[in-house]
């Protein structure tokens, strides 16, 4: 079920450790998430209806999720009527096979691609390479990571792990001729120059879709660079890949969600480019592709309809949860090891890749709730993460030391008398390790004392002192 690169087994903890040691990475993350956080706060403050819009967004998604089959069938009918070909893929392998088949049938040599997380999810870049097809990423950030041979580290800013200084270095080596200066404007011009010929020479353009509009059969794609338009218009064939949960009843619903998506993602009011594609070029049209294929991908989504992760299907992929996540902001996206990073990724990755290989993700969260606070469609992410922890506990995937530890503690906590005795002994024992008011080193508590001191218990437990006081009061009525 997983994309090929996910099979490389490096543990989450090791990836996190590597990330934590990378100070440049931290600078890059702080710059982008900090800006995103500040801009979102301004955008939300300037939009007094935000809470109402959120409730509406949630209601739209819940309605669609409850009637997914109805709207998908409606979409297929209308998309087909507009001249597009609709394909259904039950998993990533099927999606890859459908897309490579279309490319090979068309004898395509060069494919341009506009950023799509679903394409990453189904392992499309590797599939195209395996089929011998040249792939060119046209989103600026994707262009950067393609040159660097990396995967996206954020769903909105795929190259957010790189500082502009690092990007300048990369462009100097990879662009011919190299950019004349390393200010952002010159670098963007350089990327434009590199990409222009590819846009015009591509046989096929592949894009993702932010919304699938059931009543028109249109797909809607938003970008801030216009690269999706250049990817989808000049080539002879346009392939859209989309998760089935992207469906909305009408254009008005898409626009309602778009207001939430953009404000939550970048703090803008609208993206620079919002394009609805409705079928291929018609007779008399000045431009557009001759063929349009829409690949609707399930890949675990219908399974989520019936289980405790159903609410995750509301996700509109804005990235606000990761921008506001205290863990993401320390380790960045690559540490998560899946297609989708951050809090939403910690819910989705076990769905896509299985819990056994990703049980760290739902655990590596402080449950502080900030992700849910900023989620534009009110997904209770901490509750869903806890649901994974419960599954992990039931399936005995949690480490034995934790199970034993919690087990012993629970035996005591369920017997108040015994618990009092144990805490009395525990407090006395702990006090032996103290030097002054602090404990700097404690056996079996290395996770704590490696980084911080532990306050030495102040003395007798509250319950002991309280009981003594009460007895004293009763002695002297």
């Amino acid at each position, binding site marked *: 079920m997983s994309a090929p690169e996910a099979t490389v087994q490096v543990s989450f903890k090791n990836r996190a450790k590597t990330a934590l040691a990378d100070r440049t990475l931290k600078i890059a993350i702080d710059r982008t998430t900090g800006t995103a956080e500040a801009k979102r706060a301004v955008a939300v403050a300037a939009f007094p209806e935000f809470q109402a819009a959120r409730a509406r967004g949630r209601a739209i998604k819940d309605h669609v999720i409850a009637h997914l089959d109805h709207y998908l069938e409606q979409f297929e009918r209308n998309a087909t009527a507009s001249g597009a070909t609709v394909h259904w893929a039950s998993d990533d392998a099927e999606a890859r096979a459908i897309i490579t088949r279309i490319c090979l049938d068309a004898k395509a040599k060069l494919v341009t691609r506009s950023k799509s997380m679903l394409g990453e999810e189904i392992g499309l870049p590797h599939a195209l390479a395996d089929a011998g097809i040249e792939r060119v990423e046209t989103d600026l950030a994707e262009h950067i990571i393609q040159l660097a041979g990396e995967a996206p580290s954020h769903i909105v800013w795929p190259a957010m792990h790189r500082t502009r200084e690092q990007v300048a270095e990369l462009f100097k080596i990879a662009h011919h001729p190299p950019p004349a200066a390393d200010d952002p404007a010159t670098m963007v011009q350089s990327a434009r120059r590199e990409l222009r010929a590819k846009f015009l020479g591509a046989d096929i353009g592949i894009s993702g879709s932010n919304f699938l509009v059931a009543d028109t059969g249109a797909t809607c794609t938003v970008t801030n660079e216009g690269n999706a338009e250049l990817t989808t218009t000049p080539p002879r064939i346009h392939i859209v890949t989309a998760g089935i949960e992207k469906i909305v009843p009408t254009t008005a619903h898409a626009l309602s969600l778009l207001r939430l998506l953009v404000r939550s993602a970048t703090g803008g009011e609208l993206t620079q480019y919002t394009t609805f594609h409705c079928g291929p070029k018609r007779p008399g049209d000045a431009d557009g592709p001759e063929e349009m294929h829409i690949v609707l991908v399930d890949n675990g989504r219908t399974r989520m309809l019936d289980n405790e992760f159903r609410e995750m299907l509301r996700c509109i992929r804005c990235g606000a949860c990761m921008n506001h996540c*205290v863990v993401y902001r320390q380790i960045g996206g690559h540490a998560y090891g899946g297609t989708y990073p951050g809090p939403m990724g910690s819910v989705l990755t076990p769905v896509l890749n299985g819990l056994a290989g990703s049980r760290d993700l739902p655990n590596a969260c402080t449950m502080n709730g900030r992700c849910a606070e900023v989620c534009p469609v009110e997904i209770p992410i901490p509750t869903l993460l806890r649901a994974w922890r*419960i599954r992990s506990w039931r399936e005995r995937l949690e480490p034995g030391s934790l199970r034993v530890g919690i087990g012993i503690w629970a035996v005591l906590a369920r017997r108040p008398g015994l618990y009092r005795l144990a805490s009395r002994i525990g407090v006395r024992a702990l006090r032996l390790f103290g030097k002054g008011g602090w404990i700097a080193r404690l056996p079996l508590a290395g*996770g704590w004392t490696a980084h911080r001191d532990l306050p030495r218990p*102040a003395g007798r*437990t509250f319950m002991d002192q*309280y009981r003594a006081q009460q007895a004293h009061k009763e002695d002297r009525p």
Partner: protein
Amino acid sequence: MSEQPPPHVGLFVTCIVDAIRPCIGFSALQLLEEAGCRVEVPEAQTCCGQPALNSGDEKDAAALARQTIAAFEGFDYVVLPSGSCAGTIVHGYPDLLANDPVWAPRARTLAARTHEITSFLVDVMGFRPKGRRLSATATYHDSCAGLRELGIAAQPRALLAEVEGLEMRGLEGNDVCCGFGGTFCVKYSDISNAIVTEKAEAIERTEADLLLAGDLGCLMNMAGKLNRRGARTRCFHTIEVLAGRADGPAIGEEG
């Protein structure tokens, strides 16, 4: 017309307050009594079960939820000096026992009567401490569970504003997690350290004498980091200041 009897409050001291810093429990007791409550500390209390709940161990969490419900059922109110443990009773128990026909209604009844202490004092009792003085500068960290599960932000600040001489200073990222997260800080110790380091830096930048917060777990994490860094910030639970006990030893100071 007879006067209304004083509300009968069950104080849940919480397990780490019981073991590490009893002073917080006595501050709670004192403030509740000053506010006019008749307070009792039930013997059958141990831990709210949060460590089990957040580890995915539903069975033990549910057993502890039932034990806690039974221990606190007879009171008008249940009050805790912790937003996180209060949040577990208010939101965690009803979810955990939702499918248990006997315990679900009991969990909901208890949840409706359970309050974190600063919100109880302000929202339920309309209490303000009288005659408190403390000449110091302080900054306040909004612990996540209290803030987001229970909406506690204005209450502690309103109470602290009554302390004469206490100058409050804003904390950059006051609503950002300190990296404690219960077992998180031990299980993912490196990540937790990176988070609490940033928090400590923000606290140090305020140059405040005191760091205040409403949860001992978060306080232990921040205080432990500040001490390891050699910072001189003294750390107290909000209610220790409100009870006039900030002249005593701060967290990690010898009594």
